């Protein structure tokens, strides 16, 4: 298997955003793969080259490419099958087939299935590059037309996996029944008027899920505002309401994270918010709330973490977010997407990939902290590999480092708390006067105040 390569050059072919066009090359023959890669890199494209069609589907699903070049005869999947698969994911991306020999019937079939060009070996490099350039230009024009013409847009969407669900969904790849069922249930509740509850384990990616939900309402002036225990109070709510008003919003959806951890006052606010009562009355648009909690509503009610009002309100529409370990078919795809993001974040020239052992590990690991855990693990692994291959050993090392980091940060918090307590005691001892306590620690008054106010 060949690693993904990305070389940056001075003059790249640029799209309308000023970014170089990207090409995914798939050929199990490493020598020919290298040749194709060199050809396209010399022609100033950014190239990702892969030898495994299964991996190529994963990478293609979560990365945007302007063109795909594929071989036909490959062990795990033919080029025709690969093309049909990726056309089902992003039908707008042009595909070029390169092969040693193809029957006329097969070429006709490929054309029917939407291939942009078929090139037989030995290659005419100039024809190949000319055709790929034309295909990319055509795709760019079609993309632009799709933005203004709904018919073109619809034609693009017909075969995509989103078409299978009937809506766009990105927080899970929906390759497993648990995530597909979740996506469909969430979509069925999209028109909730007052309250929706998302129940997920620790580390659930509520924000991405809510972004999917927000994507269900392309035609409305819908605004989403996110609040956690640290940011949820009347003044911040009012600010969000005023912003929505200034934006001419038709509706404001407030997403409240970790509701069970909020103070009684915050919970009271959370209960009256969707009814637009008290301080939230008088706004000309609808207000609704998404409550995010980590446990079953009955358990939260029994443990008195929510009162009966919130219990009924939150129980009106509840959707359980699947645990990551119940979506084993999704995990590798999600991890691959995170790898791309992490590589961009650290400015890596190459995008690392998972080897077979790492993919197996990702599918079988327990993921107690769900998406957050996966993100942390991938970030650490990407930082450790610097664009190489991520193996099971890299993932295990990443886990060890994370555990150590957690222990170290826990001690840091403990020490800071102890310091604050000590300084507070000293201030009390010096008659509630920080300026008198400061010399005791050999520090100035400002430093002492900053410690106790943290």
């Amino acid at each position: 298997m060949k690693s993904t390569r990305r070389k940056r050059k001075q003059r790249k072919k640029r799209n309308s955003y000023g970014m170089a066009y990207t090409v995914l090359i798939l050929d199990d023959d490493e020598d020919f793969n290298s040749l194709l890669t060199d050809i396209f890199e010399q022609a100033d494209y950014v190239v990702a080259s892969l030898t495994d069609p299964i991996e190529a589907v994963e990478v293609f699903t979560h990365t945007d490419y302007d063109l795909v070049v594929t071989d036909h005869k490959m062990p795990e999947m033919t080029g025709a099958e690969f093309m049909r698969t990726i056309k089902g994911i992003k039908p707008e991306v042009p595909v070029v087939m390169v092969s040693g020999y193809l029957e006329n019937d097969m070429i006709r079939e490929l054309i029917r299935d939407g291939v942009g060009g078929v090139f037989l070996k030995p290659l005419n490099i100039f024809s190949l590059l000319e055709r790929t350039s034309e295909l990319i230009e055509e795709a760019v024009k079609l993309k632009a037309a799709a933005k203004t013409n709904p018919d073109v847009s619809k034609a693009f969407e017909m075969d995509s996996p989103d078409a299978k669900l009937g809506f766009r969904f990105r927080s899970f790849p929906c390759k497993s029944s648990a995530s597909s069922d979740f996506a469909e249930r969430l979509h069925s509740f999209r028109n909730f008027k007052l309250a929706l509850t998302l129940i997920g384990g620790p580390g659930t990616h509520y924000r991405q899920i809510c972004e999917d939900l927000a994507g269900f309402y392309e035609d409305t002036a819908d605004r989403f505002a996110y609040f956690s225990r640290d940011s949820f109070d009347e003044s911040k709510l009012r600010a969000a309401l005023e912003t929505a008003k200034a934006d001419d919003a038709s509706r404001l959806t407030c997403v409240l994270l970790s509701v069970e951890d909020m103070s009684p006052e915050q919970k009271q606010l959370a209960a009256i918010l969707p009814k637009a009562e008290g301080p939230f009355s008088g706004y000309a648009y609808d207000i609704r709330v998404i409550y995010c909690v980590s446990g079953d509503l009955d358990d939260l009610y029994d443990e008195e973490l929510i009162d009966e009002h919130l219990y009924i309100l939150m129980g009106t529409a509840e959707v359980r977010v699947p645990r990551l370990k119940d979506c084993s078919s999704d995990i590798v795809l999600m991890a691959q997407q995170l790898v791309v993001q992490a590589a961009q974040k650290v400015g890596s020239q190459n995008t690392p990939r998972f080897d077979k052992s790492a993919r197996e590990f990702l599918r079988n690991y327990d993921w107690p902290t769900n998406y957050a855990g996966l993100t942390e693990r991938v970030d650490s692994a990407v930082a450790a590999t610097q664009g190489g291959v991520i193996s099971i050993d890299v993932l295990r090392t990443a886990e060890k480092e994370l555990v150590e980091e957690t222990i170290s940060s826990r001690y840091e918090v403990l020490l800071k708390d102890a310091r604050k307590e000590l300084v507070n005691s000293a201030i009390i001892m010096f008659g509630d006067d920080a300026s008198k306590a400061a010399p005791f620690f050999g520090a100035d008054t400002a430093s002492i105040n900053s410690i106790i106010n943290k």
Partner: protein
Amino acid sequence: MQQHRALILRGNRFLGSALVDKGLISQPDLEAANDKFMSSIQEADLKNSSILTSLLYDLKVLDEDKLLAYTVENKGCGLIDLNHIDLKSLTPLNGVDSELCWATSTLPFDKVEGTHLVVSCYTLSAPVVKYWEDVLDGNVIWYVSSVSSISRGLERLDEIHEAEAEAEEEEE
């Protein structure tokens, strides 16, 4: 009635979700019914705290015939009219009283060879079914009836209990 407050909340919450899941009401209908339900809970009117009555009589968004048909076809419940049943006192049943019956719109109306025949408006609500099956040691055959039939049955049961109490007083 206060001792059944949690069961009332739980029973109605699950019933509401089930009605939405089975497509018998819409989610906004449930939101409106829950609003009324919470108002009556807060007014301590527990006897009349039910999302069913709101959905049927206030909001008029639930087709009771459809609900009964759904329950008979999918939950395997029998359909009866309590007006044609001779009701008996609940005194012999441990852990069962009239308030529990009102709280869950449920009534055990007969017992055949150790098996209780129970009619309820809440057979779609898992906590209510579980509660009753626990109280009656699991030997239950479930029936459904209209809300008005069960309410009338519960009123008759109250009359039976009142007569029983008066008779006891007279004996003393």
